[in-house]
């Protein structure tokens, strides 16, 4: 076979495997999603030919008996709750994950790899199984309530299940490794002598954390926040199992549209919305990062 002479053609040829992979596994599905979101719903699932904004209209409006559009905040509430819960889960992961990551970096090499292994260990078990474990823990007369009732601390159920709190705990539990690992990676490079230098220059522990550790861990903290926030926003296992039907998040809503509700265009439109929120978040982060780089001049 004769190879193409043109260097530009040859370069594209070399890039082909990567381009095909990205095209087939990323761009094509996104494109299908985008197309589906503008098509008509087939009552038995799937989509019918035709072009309509119906999928997007449904996010904001409900059709009443006279086929008139009535504003309906149900789905907006779900989107809002998703953003709030995902943000709180990110914050929770950060507050718990930062000290854990710092603690790990202060151990000797053997203990470090052991602890990192333990942090990633839950990934080896099915997410559903792990989330079911939380049902046992949080449920009425569950692992937490039973001993408290036995000791007479509480009389009635705490009603922990099917609350925003339960969903939040589930999200923090699921995604905290994604916070700990990047922060660990950036703290691991931290020169411990800088902490000594700060102590030497009259900084107490809190000031050392604020002035030295957190600023130098910033790249890891930002990466961790994105890695936790993005999947939390679209999560559906924890909201489904721990929030029940009552505390829906976007992920479960989308999943429902493709499965039981059989409204693919609406599900696709919601997925595009979710994507838009994620893109806006990432662009905002990129802008902050660019400004930081401009300030530090590095």
């Amino acid at each position, binding site marked *: 076979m004769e190879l193409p002479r043109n260097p530009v053609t040859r370069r594209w040829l070399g890039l082909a495997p990567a381009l095909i992979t990205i095209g087939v596994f990323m761009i094509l599905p996104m494109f299908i999603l985008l197309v589906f979101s503008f098509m008509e719903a087939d009552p038995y699932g799937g989509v019918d030919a035709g072009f309509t904004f119906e999928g997007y209209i449904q996010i904001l409006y409900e059709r009443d008996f006279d086929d008139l559009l009535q504003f309906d905040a149900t789905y907006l509430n779900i989107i809002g709750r998703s953003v709030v819960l995902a943000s709180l889960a990110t914050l929770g992961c950060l507050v718990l994950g930062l000290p854990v990551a710092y603690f790990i970096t202060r151990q000797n090499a053997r203990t470090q790899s052991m602890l990192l292994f333990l942090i990633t260990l839950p990934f080896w078990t099915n997410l559903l199984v792990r989330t079911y474990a939380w049902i046992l823990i949080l449920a009425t007369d569950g692992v937490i309530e039973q001993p408290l009732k036995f000791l007479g601390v509480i009389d009635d159920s705490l009603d922990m299940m099917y609350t925003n709190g339960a969903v939040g705990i589930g999200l923090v539990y699921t995604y905290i490794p994604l916070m700990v690992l990047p922060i660990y990676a950036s703290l691991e490079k931290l020169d411990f*002598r800088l902490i000594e230098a700060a*102590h*030497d*220059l*009259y*900084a*107490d522990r809190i000031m050392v954390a604020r002035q030295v550790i957190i*600023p130098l861990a910033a790249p890891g903290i930002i990466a961790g926040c994105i890695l936790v926030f993005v999947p939390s926003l679209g999560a559906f296992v924890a909201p489904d199992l721990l929030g029940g039907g009552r505390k829906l998040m976007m992920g479960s809503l989308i999943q429902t549209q493709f499965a039981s509700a059989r409204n693919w265009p609406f599900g696709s439109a919601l997925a595009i919305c979710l994507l838009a929120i994620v893109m806006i978040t990432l662009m905002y982060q990129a802008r902050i990062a660019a400004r930081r780089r401009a300030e530090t001049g*590095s």
Partner: protein
Amino acid sequence: MTETNKSIAVSGRNVVKQFGSGDHLVTALGGVSLEIDDNEFFTLLGPSGCGKTTLLRLIAGFEMPTEGEIFLFGEEIEDLPPHKRSINTVFQHYALFPHMTVGENVGFGLRMQGHNDADIAKRVEESLALAKMGRFINRKPVQLSGGQQQRVALARALAPRPKVLLLDEPLSALDLKLRQAMRVELKTLQRETGITFIFVTHDQEEALTMSDRIAVMSEGQIQQIGGPQDIYERPINRFVADFIGDTNFLEAEISSIEDDFANCRVSNDLSFKVQSIAQHNKGDKVTLAIRPEKISLAQSGEVQGRITDAVYLGTDTSYSVAISDDITLSVRDQIDLTGHARFTAGDLVGVGLSADAVRMLID
């Protein structure tokens, strides 16, 4: 307990530091006592692992002593954390905060002490001027050379005007010319600021050129404390004599004792009358030391030797001179005006050994 003598900046009493436990117990400092005067340039000198850095870290507060007390101007400080001691450190690898500018680095200690912005700005400027780094106030540490980072580290440690400044081998990462220039500058800086400097180094030349007093350390103990000349001219034991400068060691036996002096017999035709440093008896074995540059060479002399090796060193020639079958001396001889060595290997020479230059050592 409090010290009454206020002119002593730092003192340690029987300071012991051990790391690990059980079978892995390592004694880094085995009961060190010392007093460092106010306004003194004091150097801790010794090979790596001698405990000098451990002692410095105990004074800074990065480590707590296993036993003993440390005082700062009479106040007992060994239990205080580093941020509560008016002591600042210039770290070996500078440890500048990479995310802060030079100005922010230098101002860090002042900010933590709660000075107001105007005061901080003024003192940052002063400190940078002192370290000749004023032009670099807005740079980041990565944009500076090693020598410049060194100066910033110095300015940062001096800005809060500590009572004592600790310097942990601060010149070891610099090249030779810069290191020599910085020695002079550090000494000047110490005199100008009047701050007590405690300087850690393994470089004997550095110690001799800068210090008011030197503590020579080995194996967790202070071997000798004294001025540069004391240490060089009157080393107390074999370790000090060997570590600082080059030394010829001669094994001798005391043949007779006269008052403070002992006649030490090295061989049948070589003996010296040397000042005793301890209570000796006739027949005791002692070690004598003589510096290579204190031995003179001539065409002929009382003691005969044969040159076995001559090494050209630029300013000097280093000869190995065999004066008997089992004694070979190292001798330093200046290059003459024409730039030639006076002798070559194989020459027979007279070796001038003055008893005044010979020291008796405690082994």
